[in-house]
């Protein structure tokens, strides 16, 4: 068990190196760079003064170490990354990227966690009800609703939420951050996808479990519905549920990028999106690596929990 966790950690480190190197390399291939977009192209700044442009460019490059060979740049970056120092951002030259991440991440993470919590609280009972009455009208209704969650992206949901709460009901402001009610629409928009996954997973898994031979054994032993369904079936379907939830949490982190922009939430997503648009490479590389690390660590934790909960894996290692 410890050995396999060690293996996994090693693999995570390897993946992070590959991912960051790949992103780093890609950024060098980029057609329009930060300077062109933000300094040189702006006529009022330099007005075609070529000498001045070169000067600015050289100073910029020197400041960010871009005049060194690529591999050296990457190694320097990697050295910093090991101790969570990703260097200064292009766009916010006074802040280091890790500071921006440290500011934005808690907001994104708490949004994602809140959405997951809502999804579990609503999704679990829905899935269980659908599984216990398969092919009834309530099952069809739940399945239909959950289908909508699968296919409609969270920002489209966000549109409908704004139309509903802000335009028609006039209950909530379209966007903003700081008050408790600012959480409602982002969390609702975000929770639909994981909620759907939970409902669908719970339904199929519980229906499948109820068909197992050992459930028949439990009935034959004289268990009540509560004893058989909660004591045997549900228990066995809930253990693998966390393997569904883990990736969902990671997915939420990434996709909150879209929703945060929409509701003007100052999370990591906002920084990331503008970093991509404005070619703020240090920010991009750092946040991609950071996201990847978060997702992989979540998956590792899920795996460990799963191994711990399922006796078959717990004992065999």
């Amino acid at each position, binding site marked *: 068990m410890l050995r396999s966790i060690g293996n996994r950690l090693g693999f995570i480190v390897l993946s992070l190196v590959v991912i960051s190197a790949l992103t780093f390399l890609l950024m060098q291939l980029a057609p329009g760079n930060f300077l062109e977009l933000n300094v040189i192209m702006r006529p009022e700044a330099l007005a075609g003064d070529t000498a001045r442009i070169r000067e600015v460019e050289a100073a910029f490059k020197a400041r960010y170490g871009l005049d060194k060979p690529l591999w050296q740049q990457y190694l320097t970056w990697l050295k910093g990354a090991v101790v969570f120092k990703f260097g200064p951002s292009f766009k916010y030259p006074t802040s280091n990227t890790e500071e921006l991440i440290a500011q934005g991440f808690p907001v994104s993470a708490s949004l994602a966690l809140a959405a997951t919590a809502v999804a579990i609280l609503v999704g679990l009972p829905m899935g269980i009800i659908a599984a216990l009455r398969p092919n009834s009208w309530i099952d069809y209704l739940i399945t239909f609703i959950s289908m909508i969650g699968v296919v409609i992206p969270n920002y489209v949901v966000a549109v409908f939420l704004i139309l509903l709460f802000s335009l028609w009901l006039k209950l909530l402001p379209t966007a903003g951050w700081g008050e408790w009610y600012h959480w409602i629409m982002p969390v609702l928009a975000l929770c639909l996808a994981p909620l759907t996954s939970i409902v669908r997973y719970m339904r199929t898994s519980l229906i499948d479990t109820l068909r197992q031979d050992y459930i028949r054994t439990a009935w*034959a032993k004289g*268990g009540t519905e509560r004893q058989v369904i909660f004591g045997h079936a549900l228990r*066995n379907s809930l253990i693998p549920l966390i393997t569904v939830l883990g990736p969902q949490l990671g997915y939420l982190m990434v996709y909150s990028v879209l929703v945060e922009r929409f509701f003007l939430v100052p999370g990591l997503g906002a920084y990331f999106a503008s970093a991509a648009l404005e070619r703020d490479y240090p920010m991009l590389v750092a946040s991609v690596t950071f996201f990847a690390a978060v997702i992989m660590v979540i998956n590792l934790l899920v795996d460990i929990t799963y191994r711990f909960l399922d006796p078959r894996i717990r004992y065999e290692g």
Partner: protein
Amino acid sequence: MEELLRVTNLKTHFFRPDGVVRAVDGISYTLNKGESLAIMGESGCGKSVGVMSLIQLVRKPGRIVEGQALFEGRDLLKMGKEEIRQIRGHCIAMIFQDPMTSLNPTLTIGKQITEPMLWHNYAGRQEARERAIKLLAAVGIPSPWQRFTEYPFQFSGGMKQRVMIAMALACEPRLIIADEPTTALDVTVQAQIIDLLRRMKEETGTSVLMITHDLGVAADFCDKVMVMYAGRVAEQAPMDEFVERPCHPYSRGLMNSTLDLGRLKGRLDPIPGAPPSLLNPPAGCRFHPRCSEAMAVCSEKEPELVEVGPGRKVACWTAEKEGCKN
């Protein structure tokens, strides 16, 4: 002998979109206290559904359509949810075919054995635990104290089937239904399990309904036999007589198809064809299309189960006319 179970005209059908599958279509039999009855037949003849119906464990779209199953004078089929629940695992216990899948993989063996005792208030927590360990020892599981806290995957196939037997015995049931209890096991392990079942039956005096397709196992273990074909009873007989002189042409066909050690003879004489679809069974006697002795009447009218000797009943027109041949 005292009668324990009397099943009369039991019908369990499956209502599927493509039609009604008459899996069990009017079977009747009795079982006395301390007796063991083998229910035999080939795949899909309804033998499993027949016994599952007794404790109302038939799953949708299956439904018990008709019949009566008097267990100690009470009709099992008319019982409500709670009433039948109190019968299951308490008065009537089951042992299933595949010990690998019949135990819950995420619960300890100990918990699974004590469950029926706790569920039926048969014993308190401590008592149940002690009894479970005693039972594990009785079914031949070494170091039961330790194994009590282990999980099913830590047991081999034969050991799991022993656990299933211990679990069935937990509340001292008056009837044990064993559904192909040895089919999934190797020969040497099968012998161990049959031996164990026999010992347990002798010690506790419980009655056994054993479903099997293996004539050897049935002949070795059971006092009586009932042969089913396509949802109907073909023949009922005491085991000794049946082995000597099977009466229904289908029983004879089965006997002729079954290979026995040291019973070398010329060409095997199997029954031609395959069992019919239960969606649309043949008219008259359901066996007549495969029967070498079929007469005109066989394809027109279904034969009744008639008594041809003490404890012997046959549903066949030839037997009705001439009694039991050969």
